[in-house]
């Protein structure tokens, strides 16, 4: 993932430098910057990056107009950055084809989480293997490998584990996991989720009664502790 090329467009030079530094510290070596939409379009005329991070409020052509130009040429994944955060701005961004939206000011980890999530969705061909304390989960094949043993995941178990793996180390709520397992109308699915969690622990933990990887946050949800993330 970190070998992907990211284009960042913002008219504030200090902000541009800060974002470039955030990506560099996270291992993204190929970060290209542009201080205006015109400069960005000139860069896009050459080799296309793998993703773009666009500021909305820029003098001259703004981020929305730049997004429209990008969409006219490609389906490049785009994250919009804005200092406004109005609901109508978010809707406009999504209607124009933005993949996600981040309101300034933001923490570096918030930016990195969104970028990684967008890249994971946009480039699923990247091999997705999650290494846990006692097992390895191959998300492409929906399999758990524990020593010599290979165990298949059910569709629902896969949905739950994939969602947890998207946010390693962070609590994912019961509702979000139910939604991953069974879709939008998940109310009433909570007790079935507990069954999926129990089965998952039996597959990925050395001792399901003392889990090291799939932990409970009581009353809130669950979190997945990974040794190494997705490749």
């Amino acid at each position, binding site marked *: 993932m970190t070998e992907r090329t990211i284009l960042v467009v913002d008219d*504030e030079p*200090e*902000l541009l430098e*800060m*974002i470039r*530094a*955030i990506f560099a*510290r996270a291992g993204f070596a190929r970060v290209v910057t542009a201080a205006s939409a015109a400069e960005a379009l000139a860069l896009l005329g050459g080799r296309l990056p793998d993703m773009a991070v666009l500021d909305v*409020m820029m003098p001259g052509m703004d981020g929305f107009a730049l997004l429209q130009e990008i969409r006219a040429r490609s389906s490049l994944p785009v994250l919009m950055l804005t*200092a*406004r*955060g109005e*609901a109508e701005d978010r809707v406009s961004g999504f209607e124009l084809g933005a993949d996600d939206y981040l*309101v*300034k*000011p*933001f*923490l*570096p*980890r918030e930016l990195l989480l969104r970028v990684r999530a967008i890249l994971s969705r946009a480039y699923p061909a990247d091999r997705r293997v999650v290494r846990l304390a006692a097992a390895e989960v191959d998300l492409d094949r929906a399999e758990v490998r524990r020593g010599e043993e290979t165990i298949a995941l059910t569709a629902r178990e896969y949905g739950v584990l994939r969602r947890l793996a998207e946010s390693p180390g*962070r*609590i994912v*709520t*019961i*509702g979000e996991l139910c939604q991953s397992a069974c879709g939008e109308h998940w*109310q*009433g699915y909570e007790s079935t989720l507990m069954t999926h969690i129990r089965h998952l622990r039996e597959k990925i933990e050395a001792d399901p009664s003392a889990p090291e990887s799939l932990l409970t*946050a*009581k*009353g*809130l*949800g669950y979190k997945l502790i990974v040794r190494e993330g997705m490749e």
Partner: protein
Amino acid sequence: MSAQRFLRRCLAPCAKLLPLMLAANLVLVFLAILLPVGALVGAVPVTAANFALMLWVLRRQMRRADEAAGALLAGAERIAGGERAALPEDGEYPELCAALNRAGYRAEERERTRVEWVRGISHDIRTPLSLVLGYAGALEDDLALPAEARAQAGIIRRQSERLRRLVEDLNLISKLEAHMRPLEPALLSPAELARRAAVDFLEQEPDARWPVALCAEGAPEAIWGDESLLARMLGNLLLNAAAHNPGGCHIWLRVNGGEGFCRFVVADDGAGAPAEKLAELNAEDFPDQVYRATGGDGATHGLGLRLVCRVVQAHSGRVRFANESPHGFLAETTLPAGRAAICCRD
């Protein structure tokens, strides 16, 4: 309007009938002189008819004046509520109606200007705050730095996040108070709302000084509400508990309900609030009070809780603040579960 002018206005139509009444009375006098008996017989019904006519006209005018005064009062109350008066300028008291309409229009324009000013300020603050928050976060996460430097960066990061939240609250309050933030009602799971609020809070404050215990037994399966506003309400209540107990405290987030309503309770075992502060928070006009800071511990009962009250108001709910026994603070918000309660406020 003075009583004299009011009476003059009520009696004005009588002036139009004056010539007729004068003629009738002259005829009566003439008949009384010529034919005392006939005049006596004829005078009684004519006099009675005179009085009845005058009374009917007076009563009709008083009723019309009363209705017009009621409409004027309603228009004045709409202006006080931040809306236009929208009074008809071709009926009773046209000058007064036109003046109230102009006053309402100007009040609306002033409110809109205020909201735009707040929005502009909050927009201008965001970019410099982005740099402060971004670099503070990066320094805090930099393992190459000494622990003390990283801890100091953490303080800068936390205070920057607090500033971020203040700016967002200020922006949102100004829009809610000016009725420029329409509700976006959706069917929500209150238990899941509470879970996400707790998780967001724990991610912002990961050092475990404020553990949150959630209990959603008895929570309704679904309620109608504006998801982002309700999330903000719960987030502010959790942050309020942390802000007033910097040394740490336990926080409980309870969700329950009954027929047609849902209740969120955020309680802690911290310091609680002084009695006069509780009285201020529970006053009906608390959200209308200007943002103020307390003295003493330097903590504030201002913007965050004011936003909570505005969100509850927007959902036609009610909020109660109290101290817990033996110590601690409690905020209880009760919201109607149905769509009608919030849609009527759009």
